[in-house]
């Protein structure tokens, strides 16, 4: 199922740790505007694949193209600048900073990120900061964090931290958002609201790739679905096909007679 002009294209992506091949020649295309679901049993290599895509552990071989441009081998900050933003399986907030400032961390090309501009062009820095803050308030409201936006991020609940992770990546208007288990450890109400937010963003054209163990979430919003087991891609296609695929059942349930 290769689209003519995919948002994300993986080709033979491989990551080894010593003698262990965590990601083994994974290749797929994710179409523009899709919500891709990446599933598989624990230890299948899903998070390692995310880390490889995001530049945290550069792949040993293979190609990754985002919107036609190669991004493999780039450092995480360059991958982010290229338009790929990811969240973490275990949220990584900046705990001593407020929710608002956690969100304002992500500013597109702000002059004030170069230290001298704060001295030579304070007016420009202020103007950009005000615009950034207005955008951050909007994103925070979208994510339902307005009530806690002045609180230190370290005081948030697990579910709120998932929302904060989403808020931070939304600030960048990335080409693709990678979510690592957004629904894990989140209460059902919050999970429903998280799913609604993903759908709403997707309706605006946002492409996602989501690792998720909650099959209700995966089956209801993800298409296509990619199944990994032992580092390999063993299935790609729609949800109904995944349920019928013997290799997928095998990976989840062990060897069937």
């Amino acid at each position, binding site marked *: 199922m290769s689209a003519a002009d995919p948002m994300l294209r993986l080709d033979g992506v491989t990551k080894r740790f010593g003698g262990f091949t965590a990601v083994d020649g994974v290749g797929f295309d994710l179409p523009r505007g899709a919500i891709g679901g990446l599933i598989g049993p624990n230890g299948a290599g899903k998070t390692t694949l995310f880390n490889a895509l995001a530049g945290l552990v550069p792949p040993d071989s293979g190609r990754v193209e985002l919107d036609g441009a190669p991004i493999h081998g780039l450092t995480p900050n360059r991958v982010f600048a290229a338009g790929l933003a990811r969240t973490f399986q275990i949220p990584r907030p900046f705990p001593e900073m*407020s929710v608002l*400032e956690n969100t*304002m961390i992500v500013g597109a090309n702000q002059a004030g990120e170069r230290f001298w501009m704060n001295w030579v062009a304070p007016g420009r820095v202020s103007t950009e900061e005000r615009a950034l803050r207005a955008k951050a308030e909007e994103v925070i409201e979208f994510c339902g964090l307005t009530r806690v936006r002045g609180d230190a991020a370290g005081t948030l609940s697990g579910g709120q931290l998932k929302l904060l992770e989403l808020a931070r990546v939304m600030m960048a208007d990335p080409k693709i958002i990678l979510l690592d288990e957004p629904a894990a450890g989140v209460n059902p109400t919050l999970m429903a609201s998280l799913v609604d937010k993903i759908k709403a963003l997707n309706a605006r054209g946002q492409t996602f790739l989501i690792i998720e163990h909650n099959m209700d979430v995966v089956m209801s919003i993800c298409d296509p679905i990619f199944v990994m087991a032992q580092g390999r891609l063993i299935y790609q296609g729609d949800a109904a096909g995944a349920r019928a695929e013997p290799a997928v059942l095998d990976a989840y349930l062990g060897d069937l007679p």
Partner: protein
Amino acid sequence: MIGVLSYLIFFLILALTLGVAVLGLNLQWGFTGLFNAGVAGFLAVGGYAMAMLTGPSRAAVFGGFELPFVVGLLGAMIASGLAAIVIGLLTIRLRHEYLAVATFGIAVTIQLVCVNWEPVTGGTLGLIGIPNPTKAMVEGSLAQNAIYLAIVLIVTAIAYTGLQRLVQGPWGRTLKAIREDETAAASLGKNPVRIRLEAFVLGCMLMGLSGALYVGFIGYVSPFDFLPIVTFQIWTMLIVGGSANNRGALLGALIVWGVWTMSGFFIARVVPPEWQAQSGAIQAVLIGLILVIVLLFRPRGLIGEEIHVSRHARSAPADARPEAP
């Protein structure tokens, strides 16, 4: 009365001079989490640069360019900044205690170079006769010191204002993010290596400036002014006053320097003459005691970090809450 006033002026000059170094350390440790245990080394670089640039010409020693005071201050900042770039590039991938050990060793090395590199540093004798610019302006040590205090106040105010501009803007927010979680910051588009190096170099430039102000005031430079105890004092000032708060850094400098000098004065009165040699150790113990008490009962310092750094993230009514405990 004149005696008290003149002592107060003398005290403030030294406390604020050290305060400039504490501001530098605050940028590194308070905001960026860089464990620089080599503060004394950068004070030394600034102090010697000041002495060489503004000091009198001498046949036996290189330097003595007799340049103006302001050139000495700027030159000291440039010299310590260049030293910081070299040391920073060598050590910037080190974290936490590894960086502390490396910078501590570098500072000890710098001090030993000062002791032994006689053609440039004057060796153990140091460099003397560094002109204090106020001597040419007015008569009388009280007036001279008052003017020097004004100079130090102006320099401190510029350093404080400049730093506040930095840490309350996007760059400062990025420093804190890197301090809190470098991996997350990198995943959100920040370049931690570049930002850490910038904070390290800017902080070290302030330490060099502090060393230059010190040397310009006392009129000579000696390698024994830059022993590791100085690093320890400046760290204590930051922890007592409040890490990641520039007002706290200055307050800590005043308090700790006050305790240090007053305890020295007091010890000199009550300790028998034959024990005077040990009294310096009592001072160090006292400073250590203050550090422990603050860490136990007020671990964030007297005025700790504020939850909002950005000037533009502060105004909302929902944000009007007290500082975190």
